[in-house]
């Protein structure tokens, strides 16, 4: 842990946190996708009926999925990846980037593709 300000850390507990963060990220992502699909399906007949609500609803569902639920998932993923690195080697918050996760902890989480990890906003 040289170079970091960590005074006490139980790597196993941190890894458990990482698992929960990744789990919620995946669930929230999948639930948002289902919600967006339900939205699009309901928006169809409304669009066919020439309502103003139909297109607005479809756009709102997609906006929610990408920007708000997506933003939440992105934050969970980013924090989880940071903690995954922390459990292996000390790294300051400001020094962290997605590449660090790929090189340090990526092998422990093979289901998280490096390409995906490195494309994360802010990573």
């Amino acid at each position, binding site marked *: 842990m040289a170079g*970091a*300000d*960590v*005074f*006490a*850390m*139980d790597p196993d*507990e*941190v890894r*458990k*946190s990482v698992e*929960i*963060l990744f789990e*919620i990220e995946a*669930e*929230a992502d999948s*639930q948002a996708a289902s*919600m967006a699909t*339900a*939205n699009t399906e*309901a928006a169809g*007949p*409304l669009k066919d*009926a*020439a*309502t*103003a*609500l139909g*297109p*607005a*609803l479809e*756009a*709102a*569902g997609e*906006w*929610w999925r990408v*920007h*708000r*639920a997506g*933003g*939440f998932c*992105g*934050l*969970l993923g*980013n*924090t989880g990846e*940071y*903690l995954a690195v*922390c459990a292996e080697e000390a790294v*300051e*918050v*400001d*020094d*962290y*980037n*997605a590449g660090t996760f790929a090189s340090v902890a990526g092998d422990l989480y093979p289901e998280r593709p490096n390409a995906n990890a490195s494309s*994360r*906003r*802010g*990573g």
Partner: protein
Amino acid sequence: MSEMTWEHLRDLDCGAVRTLGDTWKTYIDQQLAHTERLRTDVIEGHLGTEHYESDTATQVRDQIGMTADRYEDDLSDYASTRIATTLLEAADAFEKEQNELKELVPLIEQHDFDIEGPHSEYDVNLSGGLHRAILTLNPPQWLCDMCGVKKPDGFWDIDTLKVLFDSVDLYGTAIGLAGQYQDWLRAVMSRAHDADDEAAAALAEMHENPAELPPHLGATYDDLVDDYKEGVTEEVADEAEAIADGTSGLSPEQVNQWWEGLSETERRALIDEHPEWVGPVDGIPTEARDTANRTVLDRDIDALDTRIAAEEQALQGLDPESDEYQNAKEALDGLKGDRNDLAGLQDRITNDDGTPRLAEGPEPQQPYYLLGFGTQDNGRAIVSIGNPDTADNVNTLVPGTTANLSGAGGLLHRAETMQSDAQLSSPHTSNATIAWLGYDAPDTIVPEAMQERWADGASEDLENFTEGLSATGREDTNHTLTGHSYGTTVIGHAATKEGVDADNLVFVASPGVGTDTASALGVDEDNVWATRNSLDPIHLTPDFLHGADPTGDDFGGNAYHSDTGAWNANNHSTYWDDTNMAGRETLADIATGQR
């Protein structure tokens, strides 16, 4: 922009829209379980201080906490208030108008009328078959019944000749009925389009200025997170400002949900620091609006005093014969007029010690609540006697021509009379009566009160006001909307074009309400009431100005009796006098749900 046709509306699956709204609610609960888990299992569990302790650890826990907070705010502000509520409100509004169509369209078809024209303005006309039937002296039975003639049996007999003689009347009757159905259909579609456009706007505005997300952990995080935290503290004020200036797209129900979602500290801060964003907003509870409006009223009077003193000072340096002096003098007189009007309103509703005054009337006397005011145009004043959020019965009075802030005292006097009458009629219920001068009323009978534009200008505000009362009040409250004179026209236009949230509509001394039929008003015909005393000159108003007389038999709804005042009194304005106890008692019975 809504381009829904009547056929679209008829066939729309409102249940599917409502189900989607409910699905969003379920989804929100699902997501809240995630944030709960983040707090209990991560922040206070595996990542608790006994397992992970340092400055960085604190920073990471804060980051996860901020992520959960942000998502919960998003779920509340966007997923719930914006999306789910919009869907549920739209489903209700569409279904209400769809039910009207289910009643109306069969009537149109049964009477052999055709619906023609664009979705923006349908016509209901006599079909070719009906034209031919009348021209060939073979009118349908329903038309003969309406005109009181016997249907000819096909031979040239006395009945045939009578039909020939009455053919103009037959045509007029058929056209009149078609016109009523046309008014009804246009009103249904206007309200449906309005609900559709409002729903779309609420969703579209959501992503115009979305709240920032917390920054990701990484380079420059420390700076970014400071900016984020600063933004969060300003977020509520930004939302309040957008709601107050009307750019948020939120309905009063959604505003209410937003308000209820704020912490007590946030609400207090808004009332203290930005009362001008709280006082006028429909959907914010009455107590908060009253407190905020009274603060702004004090502030406005003080500001006018300062400006008047400055203008008087400036006037002293000008040549009294100069144009500049005259202009400055006029401006000064205007400021003094505004100051006097506001001070008059303040005196009326406030005790000497600054506490809200109780209105005159039977026990228990009710305090005044200031729900809105302004000096623009001829002024605005919205004052409730009694708290509409807790009352069993709420009656809102909309005044007519020449109503203005200077005359708010007279308007309040009528509201006090209505409140007293309601208390006497129903002493065991809580009642509130509101004087709603929330629009720019016509100044003159000719030409202004002959025009529709004042009513059209008021429609959306009256719609929002009634929806705000429903949002902040109890679910079972009996809401009545009472208009006097041109105020009835205002109510009629709002009810047919935008829709109003009211159980009963009462038209007192109406010049017409912008439609020829009670069916078009979006309120059960049995709960539409009209009265006019026999000496009121308003009966001279021709139908082509604002539509048929709502006390007439053909209009539908109910007419009730009002007594006249003295023969030489202005009998257009005697409805609240003691000479008209019959009319006042009926109004009180309607407003308290006893008729």
